[in-house]
């Protein structure tokens, strides 16, 4: 028996090269294409059979932004409910459908898909699995009994940010750039530009926005959500146009913008998006005027808890300034450097947007 084993081992050793390669190939393909769903949550016994699940977009759950916030909403809800949960991270767009299918096959009751880009895959999965509930963040294109859209009227908060930036700018030029030209990105840029415009009409000033044109819906994009040299060059391009407030919209690309600002050595500030970046990434806090916050964490949290208590509905959850789903973060370190009257003006505008006397519209706003 041992002899035979030894023989086999010798032959195997000779073939190690090829076999090794094959093994590497198989492992790599497995790792890249269909990550096995990983179980998270508390190790305590599940309080109920409710199983919430989540599928990320290509940013991954540790993007310090969009996916991470949704994921934190899921974890906090799961720990309150004392239930387990599953998550699957997508690496590329081709992972979306297989990941959703694998979640459904794990008997998930609620599958939360993070992001507009997963809309098609979610729609198909919802039609194929009418007994599973779905919730999709940032998309309202699906009308199905078992799909709840979680959407945000981010333009409202970005409007406030645009007003504040215009007020802060010394060069009277503010800039913005995005990751990809998709509605959830351009809605920030629309609100921002409209906020600047509102400032100009109110104060009789002429602050210019570079990087985005609301009328033609055209502007500067890096073509992806990676913090790379392209994103840094785009930020540098805005600095070359003399902008001194920059709004980078899209996951981690603000890190590239921060490096461009530091390299320029000029007193330039930037704005965070999605989370209050001052708290989520302290390494750039000295550059942050404020952040445009999108309440993904409370949104997901509420939807998961509602679904667990059996009150799932397909009525969309819309985050607005009114329900606190979107908001402008505090100025933190810049509180003493902005115009003293600014906070009061922002509060007035916020009230105006809530009662409808100031209309903030964007082609990308939730309908």
């Amino acid at each position, binding site marked *: 028996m041992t002899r035979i084993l030894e023989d086999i081992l010798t032959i195997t050793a000779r073939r190690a090269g090829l076999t090794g390669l094959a093994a590497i190939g198989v492992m790599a393909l497995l790792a890249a294409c269909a990550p096995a769903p990983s179980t998270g949550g508390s190790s305590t016994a599940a309080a109920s059979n409710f199983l919430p699940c989540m599928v990320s977009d290509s940013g991954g759950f540790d993007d310090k932004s969009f996916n991470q916030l949704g994921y934190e909403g899921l974890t906090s809800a799961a720990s309150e409910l004392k239930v387990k949960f599953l998550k699957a991270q997508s690496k590329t767009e081709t992972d979306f459908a297989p990941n959703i299918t694998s979640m459904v096959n794990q008997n998930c009751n609620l599958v939360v898909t993070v992001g507009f880009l997963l809309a098609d895959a979610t729609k198909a999965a919802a039609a194929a699995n009418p007994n599973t509930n779905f919730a999709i963040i940032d998309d309202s294109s699906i009308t199905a009994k078992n799909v709840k859209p979680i959407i945000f009227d981010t333009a409202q908060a970005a409007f406030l940010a645009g007003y504040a930036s215009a007020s802060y700018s010394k060069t009277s030029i503010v800039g913005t750039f995005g990751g990809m*030209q998709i509605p959830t990105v351009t809605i920030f840029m629309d609100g921002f530009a409209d906020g600047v415009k509102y400032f100009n009409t109110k104060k009789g000033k002429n602050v210019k926005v570079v990087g985005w044109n609301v009328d033609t819906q*055209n*502007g*500067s994009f890096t073509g992806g959500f990676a913090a790379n040299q392209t994103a840094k060059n785009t930020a540098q391009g805005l600095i070359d146009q003399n902008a001194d407030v920059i709004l980078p919209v899209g996951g981690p690309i603000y890190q590239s913008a921060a490096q461009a600002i530091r390299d320029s050595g000029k007193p330039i500030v930037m704005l965070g998006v999605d989370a209050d970046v001052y708290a989520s990434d302290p390494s750039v806090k000295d550059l942050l005027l404020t952040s445009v916050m999108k309440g993904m964490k409370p949104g997901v949290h509420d939807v998961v808890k509602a679904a667990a208590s059996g009150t799932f509905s397909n009525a969309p959850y819309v985050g607005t300034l009114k329900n606190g789903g979107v908001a402008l973060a505090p100025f933190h370190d810049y509180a003493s450097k902005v115009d003293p009257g600014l906070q009061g003006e922002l509060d007035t505008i916020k009230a105006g947007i809530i009662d409808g006397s100031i209309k903030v519209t964007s082609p990308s706003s939730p309908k």
Partner: protein
Amino acid sequence: MSTLANPMPDAGPIVLEKAELKSWKAPIALGIFALIALILFVGFGRDGSSTFRFAESTDVVQLPSLTLPTRATGIVIAILLVLLTLVGAALAQTRRTVQIWFVAIFALLFMVGLLTWASAGHTVPFTGLLIGAVSLSVPLIFGAMGGVISERVGVVNVAIEGQLLAGAFVSAMVGSMTRSPWAGIVAAMVAGVLVAFVLAAFSIKYFVDQVIVGVVLNVLVSGLTSFLYSQLLTAHPAELNAPPRFSPVDIPVLSEIPIIGPVLFRQTVIVYLMYIAVAAVYFGLFHTRWGLRLRSVGEHPQAADTVGINVTGTRFWNVSLAGAIVGAGGAYFTLGSVGSFSQDMTAGAGFIALAAVIFGRWDPIRATLAALLFGFATNLQNVLGIIGSPVPSEFLLMLPYLVTIFAVAGLVGVVRGPAASGKPYIKS
């Protein structure tokens, strides 16, 4: 062959052969661009004036900005382009080749026209455009140098992407742990060599198809770095993913030259290393014994073996050297540019570098120029997006790839690589 006797004594003169030399490819390509120029600059001509800024605020010599009337400039340039096309057609008609400098002048004019047209009412920071182009090209050039060496010695290196990514990852980690960017760049080179070892072992020792090994290596490095990134780097960002960056070093005197100074001589150490690498690879390949042996192994391994060159050894160590060069390029992503690693941050730069190798006809200088062209097209897209050109953003994002395809297909045509590249050498 001219040395052979002519078998047909009454064969006619060589008129027929000459007729085949008439090439219409260049004039047709020029004509298409002249037509685009006519449509855009004249048909959709824009009013206002376009300003080109040549000086940075920190320059000693302040060049004045150039302001051009948009519509008039566009019309003049479109007419010039049409005239150049006619000259090109005349050259083709009289069976003379359209020289590369002719195409270069045409491209430059077209570019000036396009920038003028797109920037009506705005300012183009010309120096900033070039600075960005160079910084985007740096990893491509390192990758292309590695590709040139590797292919010249006879091993197709599809794993450039993986080597860049491994270099970026390791340099971020080691740089953060040692607080030294120098340690980071050395570690990046080691990482590049390790990936190259795998490629070399499988393709040279085990005769596995080189393209397949390369592709698998790319996927492997991508999966491995993503895994380690999410397990280690995101958990300890301050200790493992915050390397100190190289700060720009101004070269005295040279950095004060207008335009060229800020673009080429106010860079980080990695960029200066790149200049050295390009010069060294060029000189080494074509003017040293090492280069001659390397090329002979890539062209005709049997012949090289016959005269006593160790084919396997030469291939193995030069592929490893190529890995070290590409690894250093990977360090640029973290230590030279952004300052932290993120998943798949190379974003296909390795494949563009591979295209630059072929576009550059396996020549280090031409490959460098090809990489610079790609960097320029990418940054042009950035600048046009910011100044609010009338071209849709989605189209602009395609621009670098369009330029690459056009350049490879239209300008290069049929090229001959090293004869034994991609073929394992089995000693009989």
